[in-house]
Every structure is written in structure tokens, then in C-alpha cells.
């Protein structure tokens, strides 16, 4: 079995890889190299910790067993708030891993840092620092998070991504306090952007695509055919309602939903 791997990319960023996880990490400030060392140390056992309680992490939070590992607990906490909607802690796994590694990295002499886990990003900013992110979509855009802003987590979900989605959103990007929270919210909003029973949408049971999937027999999107503009907006509206409720409850700070070239921002 392969161990966790740590390599520096040619531009000086740190690449951590283990099994399905790939993290790209950058830190600045005099304490950066010490920070990288702490990140590597934290990362080494992380996947094994999660794997040890995978069955629990793959169970619906509404009747899931107790979770012990620290990263598992933050995953569970991030999805807990959405009960009674069906969701498993796995909806927050990418964000929670990023959060955990960043938490280890941050320390003395780190001015600014981020951990990017395949698009789910967590950032650390000291006073005066800001973080600019680019969103690649039909209308490419940038946004800036400053030290005084509350958001430290950015996550994107959609059926085209690596994880399976119950919905048809091309991408839902969410800003929240942590990456785990952003990850969970993005997953659920992307699930909500949907046109149930629409003939253009191809779906397959998740377990058929990936036998161990936490989504079990639930139908996940495997293809989206032509949609009219009104159908597109109808699907986005379902997601928007979901996102607005989350915003009103303070779970997220902002969300951008895109489908079929249309973009709405909440």
C-alpha cells in the first residue's frame, strides 16, 4: 500500500498526495517552511484515520453512528445543520481535509496560506492580506476575500466534478466560514439544482458507478442533454431557494450557481 507522498512543485508549492486526495498548498511569510513541515506531518496519517471509520462517514447523518476522528467530526458537524435532508459526512470530506491540514500549517510567521483540495479551498489571512480567486465559467470572474471578510472556505460542486451529484448544476461555488461547511453546502445546493424526471437528464444508481458510494442506489447525474432556457432557469431557481435558506440561516456567505451558460448569484 502506498504511503502519503509530499513533493514540491517546480514553482515552490507543496503537493501532498495520498489515495484519492491531492492537496496543493502555498504559504508565505518567514515561517512558511516550518508550516509546510507541520502540514506534511498532519497529512501523513490523515487518510488512514478517515478510512478507519469510512462506514460511519458514509451513513446518512440523520441516523449515523458516533464519529470519533477529528476530521470525521468536523465533516459530521458541517452536514449536521442540514437535517433532515439526506446527507452523509462524506459531502464535506474534501473541505474538512483541507481545513485540517491548514490548521496544522498555520502558526508563527505565516502571513497567508491556502490549501486547495481539488477545488475545495481553505485560506488563512493575517491583517492586511487578501486572497483572490478566479472562477472559470461562461463568464470568467474573480473575487477577493480580505482579512476582514468572514469567509475562509471556498468549495465547488457539480455533476461534472469527480464526486457524484444528485442534481444537474454545472457548478455551484460557495463561500462559507470553513471549507468543510462550504463543501457540504455546495454539495446540497448542487443536488437541489434539478429537473426531476426530465428526459434530457441521464441518471444512474450511484452504486452502479462506484460500488462503495455513500449515495447507495440514489440516482446520480451522468449526462445532461439539451435544456430550454426556461428549464434551465427553473432548475437554477430550485437551487437558489435552497441557497437563500442557507444564507438566511448563516450557514453560507455567498453562492454562485451555473447551469447551461446561465449564472445566478445568491
Amino acid at each position, binding site marked *: *500500500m*502506498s504511503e502519503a507522498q509530499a513533493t514540491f512543485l*517546480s514553482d515552490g508549492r507543496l503537493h501532498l498526495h*495520498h*489515495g*484519492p486526495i491531492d492537496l496543493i498548498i502555498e504559504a508565505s511569510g518567514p515561517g512558511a517552511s516550518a508550516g509546510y513541515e507541520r502540514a506534511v506531518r498532519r497529512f501523513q496519517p490523515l*487518510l*488512514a484515520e*478517515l*478510512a*478507519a471509520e*469510512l462506514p460511519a462517514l458514509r451513513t446518512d447523518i440523520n441516523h449515523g453512528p458516533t464519529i470519533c476522528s477529528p476530521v470525521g467530526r468536523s465533516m459530521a458537524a458541517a452536514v449536521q445543520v442540514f437535517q433532515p435532508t439526506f446527507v452523509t459526512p462524506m459531502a464535506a470530506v474534501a473541505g474538512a481535509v483541507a481545513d485540517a491540514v491548514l490548521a496544522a500549517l498555520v502558526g508563527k510567521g505565516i502571513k497567508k496560506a491556502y490549501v486547495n483540495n481539488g477545488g475545495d479551498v481553505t485560506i488563512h489571512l493575517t491583517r492586511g492580506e487578501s486572497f483572490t480567486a478566479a472562477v472559470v465559467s*461562461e463568464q470568467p470572474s474573480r473575487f477577493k476575500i480580505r482579512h476582514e471578510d468572514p469567509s475562509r472556505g471556498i468549495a465547488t460542486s457539480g455533476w461534472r466534478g*469527480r464526486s457524484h451529484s444528485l442534481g444537474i448544476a454545472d457548478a455551484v461555488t460557495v463561500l462559507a466560514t470553513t471549507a468543510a461547511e462550504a463543501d457540504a453546502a455546495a454539495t446540497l445546493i448542487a443536488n437541489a439544482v434539478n429537473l426531476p424526471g426530465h428526459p434530457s437528464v441521464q441518471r444512474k444508481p450511484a452504486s*452502479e*458507478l*462506484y*460500488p*462503495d458510494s455513500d449515495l447507495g442506489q440514489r440516482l446520480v447525474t451522468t449526462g445532461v*442533454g*439539451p435544456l430550454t432556457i426556461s428549464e434551465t432557469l427553473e432548475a437554477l431557481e430550485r437551487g437558489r431557494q435552497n441557497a437563500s435558506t442557507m444564507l438566511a440561516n448563516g450557514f453560507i456567505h455567498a453562492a454562485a450557481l451555473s447551469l447551461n*451558460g446561465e449564472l445566478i448569484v445568491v
Partner: protein
Amino acid sequence: MTEPLRQGDKIRCDACPVMCYVAPGKTGACDRYANLDGVIIRTDPLTLLDNRIAEGGQIKPFLKADWDNKPFNCDDFQVTAMGAGTTYPDYKPAPFIVSKKIDGIDFVTVVSEAIFSYCGVKVKIDTDRHIGDEGSTVRYQGEAVGLVITGEYGSQMLSLGGVDHLTGGGKAEGKSTCEALMRLCNKEAVELFIDGGSKVVVQAGKPPIVDEKVEERMRVGCGSATIGMFASQWKGLVDEVVVVDDHITGVVSEHQAGKVLGWEDTGIRVKGRRSTPGRYFEVAEPGLGWGGTNIEDPLTILGDWNPKKGARPGLSILMVSTTGDQYGYYMLDEDLVPRKQAMPDTLIPSVELIGENCEPALCTVMFMGGAGGSLRSGATNNPVRLTRSVQAGTTTVTVGGAQAYVWPGGGITIMVDVTATPDMAFGYVPTPAIVAPLEFTTTLEEYERLGGHRTSVRTLDDILAKGGEYGSNVRAIQK
């Protein structure tokens, strides 16, 4: 181990602590490891083509550890760019620059997965059916992806893709074009619709399906050519032979080939437009009947028989299509009306010979693309020297190990038969553009002369042992 290695047909991947059970043909949570025929393999390893693997296209993974320790024989291996990854920006050395010895000369293969914004496929469809007018738009998923171009002998031709469909049209057009190209190049069956014409299912190396009908055979030639080929075999066995064909229908007694053999006039009259003696255009409409025409009863193309020019009761006639699929034997009655008869055994071999001489009808997909852009910088510091070296034939170009034809003229415009490339060799990027494995091979001496990335050259053994920036596993597939 407390858990079983298998769960039904799923096998456990122990590459990482997640230990997924992976179903046949599926990947684990990481998308990197897959279950291929009961074996866990890397989905994207650097691919080596191994002559030593037995027939049957078996794919097997191998690592440094389980390699059989035979010394590497260069004739057995070719490094391909599949799974090599790409470097961006391009001026960084290509992911693998391999040096290997061939007949004592140090060869260098520069291996990269190239992104082709300028590319397309030329499709040859072996059928005489009229699948659409020249210049007609070809559609995939309702989007325009190319057009019908000038036909070839026994084949219809399509030209698909190109930069104007990939990036010059709308987003949906580009996406559909990219998908159609990738699937065609990966030898998948693709359903194409031709404006004002047919629905054609095209799959490289497989018979075309035109309007739900599978094409079995190419015609042996046009009707006139068939007469030319077989006239002597019919002489003395039958009084008249008509070869029915949508392009040119041939009549042996009038045809030059029959005249030379001293064939006598029969008083036959064929409807349609006479081209030269014994050769008739437009005897019927194009269709799915005899010889690519719409006729089911061949007698409908014949007029009255003229007794002044040789028609007589008892005159025998063979009518046959250009594939030998349809045939009939007739005899003129007292009123000079042809009546169907059982075919004499003596004529059967000639009809069978027509069928035997027909090639199986297939689809050919040629990938064509321009490799003269910035990716050259991955191979050398002086890109134009690479272009010149390729044009001079000193550096050879392969796509997934398959020899590419390099077009004369400027740039590096290549063409390759996709059936010669390994399975699933082609991918895409959302630009949209096609990603194809591309290898430049030359001598080490020439490579240095070109300004190659000398310090990045590694031996094959070194790559097998240490891998590249993107992983250390390689697989061998049959060359």
C-alpha cells in the same frame, strides 16, 4: 487482512487506505485505479507497447518490482505518450524524454500528450449508397460538426472537426464536435446525421450502418467494370448479361469487353442515359435495392426487346448486381418477354466470384492534426529545427506508437489511422480541443543538433524504475 479480496466480481484495491471495492470496468474513489478484467491497474500510466505480449491485446500492469527482469530489448518496447501527462507552459521539457538504443544508435523519443486545437478526422465510409449531397452538413447531437466531401471509389467521404467547429462556432457546437472527434478516434460507434441525407453510424474498423442497414460488402466495381472483369467467364454460358448498378449499369453484348469477345447483339434496350456503348447512367433512383438502386425487380430497367437486332425466343439473360447479392436468370418467351427461370449451375460460380471479389465494407477514421505549435518547445529549444527535421524525415512522428503520415508542405500536419493507435488513446480538454499522445523519435545526435533538452533525456530503464513527475507506474500493451 481481515477483509476479503473480492466481493462478487468486485476486487479490493489496496493502493491506499480507502481500500475501495472496484467493480469490473470501474475506477475507485480516486479515479486513478481501475478494475480491468479482474486486475487493478493505473488508469493513466505511461504506456509502453510491448511486442512480447501475446496476441489478444492483453493489458497488464507492471511495476519495477514485478517485472520479469529480462533485459529490455528495444525492438520490443516503444514508449508512448499515453498517460505521460503534459507540461504547461510548453517550454518546460516534455514529461518524458526517453533515450533508448536502437542498433547501437542512441535514439530519443520525446513523449508528450499534445493538445490539438487544430484537428479533425477524415472519415471514409465504404458504401455506394447516397448518404447525402456533397457539401451537406454532418450533425452530431444536432450540432454541425463537419461536411460531406467529394466521394472516392466505392466510398463516401466526410470531413469532421477543424478549428471552426471546435472553437469557431457556439459552445454547444464545440462541445459536440470535440465529443464526436474523441469518440471516433477512440474507435467508438458514433451516430451522425447528414442534412437532407442519411443517418450513418460510423465506427473505425467496423461496417457502416446506413439508415439502420449494415453495409456488408463494397461492390466489386461499377457495373461496367464488372462486365470488364468477368465477360470472358460468361461467354458461351449465357446470351446476355446485365450488371445492375446505381452508378453505371453494364450490358455485355454492347460493352467493349463483350465486343472484343465477339458477343452477338441481343436487341436489348436499357432505360436510362447511355454513356458509351454498353454503359448506362441513371437506370433508376438511388436506394436500398439492386446495386444501390431503388429497384427490386431488375426487369423494370429493361425496355422492349428488338427482334431486328437479335432478340429471339429462348434468348437467355443473366441479371446481377455489383455485389452479387442479387441475381436472376431469364429467358425470352415466344412474345419476346423475359421469364424468370432457375439459374443454371454453370453460371453460379461467376455470381459467387463477384461476391468473393467484394471487399468487406468498413469505416476508416483518420485523425489529422497540426503539431507545429508551441508543443514543439517541449521537445527542443529551437522549435523550427524540429519542424525541419520532421519534414526531412530525420525525426519520425508517432501517435500512441502508430506511425503518422506527415503532410508535405509547411508545419507538422500529421494523419494517422486511429485503428493503429492503442485503445482510449485520445482525450480532450474543455477548450475544447483533442488531446492525443504524440511522440517524436530521432537519433540522440540529431536531437542534440535540434537543441533538444539534453539534460532531461533519460534511459528507458530509468523511467521504468523511477517514473515521471506524474507517477511511477507503467503498463505494457501489445504493440
